[in-house]
């Protein structure tokens, strides 16, 4: 995600456990896909954190001080890469239903139509 060219994801924290079976995928991800992901996104700081006794998750911190947490327990490394890519691709917007698909500050160029307008 990039708002006007500025990447919005500041930090990605990869939390895992070195003992639990639910972290197996993320451990494999850290070996296989994470270095490539780091290189592909130099603007992003990626941290790994070891949390014992808990399921693994990805924490994303955005520039609008919003954070998203995705639990990646029992996932394949490819799925975890997909989630990480999705977090990177997203703005830190709150996930709510869109009001409009077109956001503009200048709705009219040639003048807003009124009933009194004569061409």
């Amino acid at each position, binding site marked *: *995600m*990039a*708002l*006007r*060219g500025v*990447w*919005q994801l500041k930090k990605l924290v990869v939390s895992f456990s070195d003992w639990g079976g639910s972290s197996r995928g993320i451990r494999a991800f850290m070996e296989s896909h994470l270095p490539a992901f780091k290189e592909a996104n130099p603007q992003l700081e990626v941290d790994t954190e070891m949390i014992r006794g808990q399921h693994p998750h990805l924490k994303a911190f955005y520039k609008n001080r919003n954070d998203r947490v995705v639990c990646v327990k029992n996932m*394949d490394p*490819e*799925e975890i*890469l*997909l989630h990480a890519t*999705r977090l*990177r*691709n*997203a*703005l830190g*917007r709150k*996930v*709510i*239903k*869109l009001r409009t*698909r*077109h*956001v*503009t*500050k*200048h709705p009219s*160029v*040639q*003048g807003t139509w009124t009933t009194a307008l004569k061409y």
Partner: protein
Amino acid sequence: MHTPIRRCLQALTRQSQPTLSLFKDPLSLRLLSSAALLNHNISSPLLPIFTNSKPTSAFGQWHHGRYFSSSKQDDHIKEGGTHEIEDEDDDSDGDDDDDDDDYDEEEGDYEDEDDDTVAVSSRKKVYTEEEKEAEAEAIGYKVVGPLQKNDNVFKPYEPAFAVVQIGSHQFKVSNGDSIFTERLKFCEVNDKLILNKVLLLGSPSQTIVGRPIVPDGAVHAVVEEHALDAKVIIFKKKRRKNYRRTKGHRQELTKLRITNIEGVEKPLNELVEKPSKSAKKEREKVAVSA
């Protein structure tokens, strides 16, 4: 067991033309119909769909494998001479097929589609040629330009608008607007796009109406994000029939920021939003002339 058959029937009727193009010889055609019969108990009325159409015109054009399956599998498509008789394979969902049909029928080449809805590891379909990506983009009325490298693309607001079509949706855009479209496949975040299907261009002094497209019009945009929409829950219930289904759906969206509109003459006096001495004078000039 009914849903797979129903889907297959729909897919069959929808794609009766393209699937015929798979098979050059009537033998394989018969094999297909017989295999289809065996696998899915398709009723005889469907056979006429296969036999009555003109084989010669449809054959040899499009070798894309669209098969009848309830499970999504890799679609193996062979180029050139060897046509594997893949009638035992089953059809993917109709939605994917429609998208693929649009791509493939025009090109006559094979393509594999990415599918994010199923597990990533099972679906690895790669567009082998970049030309195909470009053509697919053209169908979706967008051309991917290079990534940004310190370009000043984000200009201040210019009073010009364009009606642009992306896929099946049309938007009236101006400089600096954001557009949410269906996910555009071949572009990453921070990519520059050129939307070339422009239906109308307008400015305070000039309006250009396309028939249906303005050939010289171009709208530049930058991909801001690829994100998922909020979850909508699809709830189906039939009362007193013990039938209740809940399904969650998140639509994949792409947010584009429109940066430039080309093809219209824009007024020379630029409208500046922040108040300053020069801007105030310009605003008075514009107000007087308009």
